[in-house]
């Protein structure tokens, strides 16, 4: 990965987005946690709260430890109807770059498929990211999932 020139950064970021989507669609939660720095933030927040300045998020995880707690919840404690999710993520749009920190965004759509049911649109929104370039590759300092979807279809178990 050559992150010294703009094209290299862009490609690396696109690669991160593609890898992230593949991991959450494959329910590879350890890999999901691995995309984040220790000191990180992951929020899934309704667009309404984001735009009106209300701090509440549907999920608000503020460290890699808390991401691991969510993984434990998904694997061991949360009862839910089984489902697959499938992410379609748009191309990254770089908003700013300062040293090894990139601010970027991308649109996403998540489809949900329940067993014996049709596939439905589950959650649609925009990732708003701060990504750090590290020797091990790109890692999220923060990932905000700001969703347009007005009503969560019952529950949201897996990360977006």
């Amino acid at each position, binding site marked *: 990965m050559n992150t010294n020139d703009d094209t290299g950064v862009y490609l690396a970021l696109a690669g991160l987005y593609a890898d992230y989507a593949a991991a959450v669609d494959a329910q590879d939660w350890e890999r999901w946690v691995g995309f984040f720095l220790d000191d990180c933030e992951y929020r*899934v927040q*309704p667009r*309404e*709260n984001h735009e*009106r300045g*209300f*701090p*509440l*998020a*549907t*999920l*608000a*995880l*503020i*460290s890699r*430890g*808390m991401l*691991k*707690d969510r993984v*434990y*919840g998904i694997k*061991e*404690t*949360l*009862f*839910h*109807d089984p489902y697959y999710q499938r992410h379609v993520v748009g191309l990254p749009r770089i908003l700013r770059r300062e040293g090894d920190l990139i601010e970027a965004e991308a649109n996403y759509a998540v489809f949900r498929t329940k067993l014996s049911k049709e596939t439905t649109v589950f959650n649609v929104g925009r990732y708003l990211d701060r990504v750090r370039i590290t020797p091990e590759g790109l890692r999220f300092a923060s990932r905000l999932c700001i969703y347009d979807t*007005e*009503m*969560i*279809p*019952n*529950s*949201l*178990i897996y990360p977006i």
Partner: protein
Amino acid sequence: MGDTPVVFPIRPVWESKESSSRIPFSVYTDEENHKRELERLFYKGHWCYVGLEAEVPNAGDFKRTVVGERSVIMVRDADGGINVVENVCAHRGMQFCRERHGNRKEFVYPYHQWNYKLNGDLQGVPFRRGVKQDGKVQGGMPKEFRTEEHGLTKLKVAVRGGVVFASFDHAVESLEDFLGPDILGYFDRLFNGRKLTILGYNRQRIPGNWKLMQENIKDPYHPGLLHTWFVTYGLWRADNKSQLVMDAQHRHAAMISTRGSGGARSEVTAGVTSFKESMEIQDKRLLDIVPEDWWGGPTAVMMTVFPSVIFQQQVNSVSTRHIQPDGKGAFDFVWTHFGFEDDTPEMTQRRLIQANLFGPAGFVSADDGEVIELSQYGFEQKPFHRAVAELGGYGEENTDHMVTETLIRGMYGYWRKVMEDPA
């Protein structure tokens, strides 16, 4: 062959006259029954939750919401009072307000520009006196047309502790009488006059009958079983010091609990598959509980105010949960998390992080929506059958423990009184 049951009963059949412990599935599946519930429980004789005063702090601020399945607008008047009016124009019935919040000096219905004061009074009708053409007045409303007779439907409003209730029934008893002294006491504990600050919303659509959410928060049986988090960390388990309290009519309830030690194995965790002795939180901020003076002892008070709302205090997380039915098989569940004006930034942050336990993704609330959905599936396929709510017996009484389904029986005792009234 004669013992094959009729699958689709005409109306709910209760097995017992005395006890409401066996709840016919058809109370969750029947369309006619649902309309009657809207009529008798949401539109008549009851106060419904519409919002918090803090959502409309300034004159002209409004919020669109619902009472039952009817769209209404809560708006703050120029004089500071709160009005609730129905979102249907008196002219041609259009639902004129589509924004969910905002600020207005008046309401204008875009189709024919009738305009209303913020209290719902009709103030202007275009071409009311006709249009002058070639020295003649053409058209216009008949001269006996009176604007006073064509206002928006105004609801009766009650505000207490910053919480706004409304009723289409102007003959409804006072909010205080409606809640009764015991429930009012718990209401006032949470809404004790401090100004509230809005932290934000969560909205989810749950494909199940609306009553199931009332029952969920009248059911202290499940949290210590379904919700691993509650059991393991002692937030809610069968051996916690607790109380179940209803109003005199058994429609509202409070489940009051004081957090125990958690962790250690005991009778109530033995054989409970959701209990995880080895479970350890990596980031302790998820459960960084700091007692607050106003709690006065209990660490959790979950209040169900029938039929429309749940008031939640679970340690430092406080919210209102608005039940908005949409037909017999679904409801929207709107969470408004809030804090208090004197909260430190640390307390606000604590409330926001503890909110991870609640809402559509919550460690302990996501599964409630899931079990409600799957219950509805069961009811739909077997509407002649009934649920059994007999933990703790058949009666409806307050208890000082939570190993009982008394509150559910109480709610259905009341439900039957109202729904089976021949009037």
